[in-house]
């Protein structure tokens, strides 16, 4: 009984720490988002706008799915900024603006790398 009363709070604290740092812990294992960003980049550079748009939609869906898990450990502003950048990128791809699209993409890349840090 004494052991349980000691182990239970320690376990609970460990779970809390994991939930509060979930973004930090799981981000290195998420390979899909950086891979999608790289694909979009090469498509923009090669002017494959249709392909870039399809990849961007996949990226949006993927990021939204990941945010469902990461939202407990990251700032609301960080998430908002990333979603805003994705929207800006979407507009840039639509008007086929290479330089601004690359700018937005690098912002997304930076935000993703610093999520939950």
């Amino acid at each position, binding site marked *: 009984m004494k052991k349980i009363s000691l182990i239970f*709070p320690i376990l*609970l604290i460990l779970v809390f720490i994991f*939930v509060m740092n979930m973004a930090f812990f799981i981000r290195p294992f998420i390979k899909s988002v950086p891979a999608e960003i790289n694909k979009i980049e090469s498509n923009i550079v090669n002017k494959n706008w249709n392909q870039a748009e399809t990849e961007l939609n996949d990226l949006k869906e993927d990021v939204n799915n990941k945010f469902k898990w990461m939202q407990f450990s*990251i700032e609301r502003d960080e998430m908002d900024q990333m979603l805003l950048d994705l929207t800006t990128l979407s507009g840039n791809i639509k008007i086929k603006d290479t330089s601004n699209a690359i700018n937005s993409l690098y912002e997304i890349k930076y935000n993703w790398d610093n999520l939950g840090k």
Partner: protein
Amino acid sequence: MFESLVVFVRGIIAFGTLLIFARLLGKQQISQLNFFDYILGITIGSIASSLTIDLTSSAWPHWIGLLTWTIAVLLLQIITVKWRRASKYFDGEPTIVIMNGKIMENTSKKMRYRTDDLMEQLRQKNVFDITQVQFAILEKDGELSVIKKPEFENVTKKDLNIQTGITGIATELIYDGIIIDANLKQTNHDHTWLFNELKKLNIQSLSEVFFMSLNPDGTIYTDLYRDHIENLTDITDSLKQS
């Protein structure tokens, strides 16, 4: 972002953490609540509240803040328990405000303790005449301890040479219809004895008993779910309809 869900999860984290940390800090926080402890409590509570609802920053820094304050309080507790001097420095000391029936004006002034406060606290101790007081000590938590002059002290049973019964703590045997086996064992009794006692009280089933305890003098206190009280006294202010 599902804001409500995030607030809910962060609320659970803050609640659980506070519960664990409060247990870690122990009873000292409540029993000796001086001004500093009071501020500590408010600060820790405020950090926990930010952890729950401040979504503009992540939960982790707030949690670290909570941990830091808890560790600081814990360290302070350990230091004050280990070193008497540190305890006096951090917690202060009790101060005599009435000595041999005389008010210590200078000491009171130093502590910014008014005579009105003294009189009020004396009244709270059922002392309405200051001439009855031999000593009054202002404790660290602001409570006043009073020693009356011998001629004004209450007469005790010992003074009157009256024999007293056995005093001690009652042991709970049944709570909510369930036998507390550990307590039964502690009192060197078993289920057979307990059921015999219940039979003597005309109780057929355990489920009828809400509470049962064994008193130090060997008597048994029993409270049943059905109290069989005919006319309940109503102390509420509800208006009777005419």
